[in-house]
């Protein structure tokens, strides 16, 4: 960490002198590739609404943590979100309602439950930080946690990326190749839930999904093959995150939302380029 502080601190910028900005920059360098890797597949499998719902459902995860008296609700968020993701996958398989109705229902339930539990005795404002997140308060320990998750997802993406792509492209083709499509989908949903839950305190549940899907959606406008798709999403995610972080420093705005605005501008550009 000290080497990192020295490295960034030697940059000739005002923002680079503050340790919270140095931490935030490091965190963003870890989160952007994570989001790009996952976002590309979220878009490919048309799961943008699913990941949005998981983001909102973390409210209940936070509430459960608060009820249990946990000092840090991270674990209750992760466990609740992963279970919810698996439940949605199972219900999609055996249920009779369409996927978007199902996800809408599940999200409504999880958000309402979370708000009811958190607003007991009028105490919701204590938790409003989770809505927009605060990247600038991230600590080195938490950055370490992000690094571990990035590493794990990176390894999984080397091992299973092709399986994900194939089962999301066409289920019967995937089955004929011996893939267990439902297990693959459940596995993927759990990873999405895990990453979303872990990122909530830093980026906020209102914008977490934007960070996940916008770079991938932008890359889809520009890419022809899979390699370009992942690579472009990765680069765009980095550019938007760093630009957003620096802008939020000078503007005094919430980092997550600022990053989203930059990412949306890039999306608009890609849309024009595609025409």
């Amino acid at each position, binding site marked *: 960490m000290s080497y990192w502080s020295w490295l960034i601190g030697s940059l000739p910028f005002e923002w680079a002198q503050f340790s919270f900005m140095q931490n935030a920059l490091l965190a963003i360098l870890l989160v952007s590739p994570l989001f790009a890797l996952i976002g590309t597949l979220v878009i*490919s499998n048309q799961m943008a609404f699913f990941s949005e719902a998981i983001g909102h459902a973390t409210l209940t995860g936070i509430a459960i943590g608060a009820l249990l008296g946990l000092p840090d609700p991270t674990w209750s968020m992760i466990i609740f979100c992963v279970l919810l993701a698996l439940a949605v996958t199972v219900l999609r398989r055996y249920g009779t309602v369409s996927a978007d109705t199902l996800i809408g229902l599940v999200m409504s339930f999880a958000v309402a439950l979370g708000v009811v539990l958190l607003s007991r005795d009028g105490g919701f404002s204590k938790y409003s930080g989770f809505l927009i997140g605060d990247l600038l308060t991230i600590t080195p320990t938490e950055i370490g946690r992000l690094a571990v998750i990035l590493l794990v997802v990176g390894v999984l993406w080397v091992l299973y990326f092709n399986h994900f*792509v194939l089962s999301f492209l*066409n289920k*019967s083709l995937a089955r004929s190749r011996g893939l267990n499509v439902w297990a693959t989908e459940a596995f993927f949903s759990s990873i999405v839930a895990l990453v979303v839950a872990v990122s909530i305190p830093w980026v906020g549940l209102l914008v977490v999904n934007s960070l996940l899907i916008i770079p991938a959606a932008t890359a889809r406008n520009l890419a022809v*093959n899979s390699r370009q798709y992942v690579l472009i999403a990765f680069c765009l995610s980095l550019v938007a995150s760093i630009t957003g972080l620096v802008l939020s420093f000078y503007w005094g705005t919430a980092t997550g939302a600022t990053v989203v605005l930059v990412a949306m501008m890039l999306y608009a550009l890609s849309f024009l380029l595609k025409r």
Partner: protein
Amino acid sequence: MQNSNQLDKRRGLHEERACCTRLIDVGVRFEGKTALQQVNLHVHCGELTAIVGPNGAGKTTLLRAIMGEISHSGELLFQPAGDSDQQKRPQIGYVPQRIEIDKSAPLTVLDLFAATGTRWPLWLWYPKKIRDEAYEALNLVGGAELIERNLGRLSCGQLQRVLLALALKPVPQLLLLDEPLAGLDHAGTAQFYEIVSGLRRYLDLSILLVSHDLNAAASIADRMVFINDKTLLFDGTPAEVLKQEDVRLAFGLDDEPVSSAFKSYCAVDDGTKE
């Protein structure tokens, strides 16, 4: 053709003693009901067998049972060429019906080959081997030039050929074609049949073709099998099967010809499409 040495070797074996695939008393029970029963079929390599029958007769159930997607009673055995008495499950290749592909998917034909046949992550640069293998398989269906093309920009006929090439890697012993022509127009159908017909001899494959287009199936098949009421009713040359009263009845062959309401929604691939 690229891998002709290896293929010639296989063909050589074929001369000595033909390989074959046997279905022995295959039956399927699904949710407590019989979906298929007592199907006995013996197909030789290099032979194309058309499976015809009305909707709901059990054709797709049979294919799914052969693929191992649903469990079945009875046996499915492959007898290799030569003197070997060894029998095992055949290596199966499968060409699905025209599949829906998201037009905006950033996926090329090569990506599809890598995704189905290897664990090498699509987001890394491909080793030469993966490219060569895909090229080789595409070459068999006259589609080598499609390798870098985006899947969403292929015509129906091109996509169908790519799926066929995909099913040939690795070279199967039994190739299943499930209504591969739904949606192709006459020229596209003819082109696809010509390729399949060539492959059956060149690769010495047993091919099972499920089709509702009786005439097209009859024109290409060496043998025809009629399935109805959840079992195999007739087995013979196309001419023999077409003579059967039940078959004529099931397909309304003796009715007055009516103009087909079936419209092809895919143009033939004439190579002019981008």
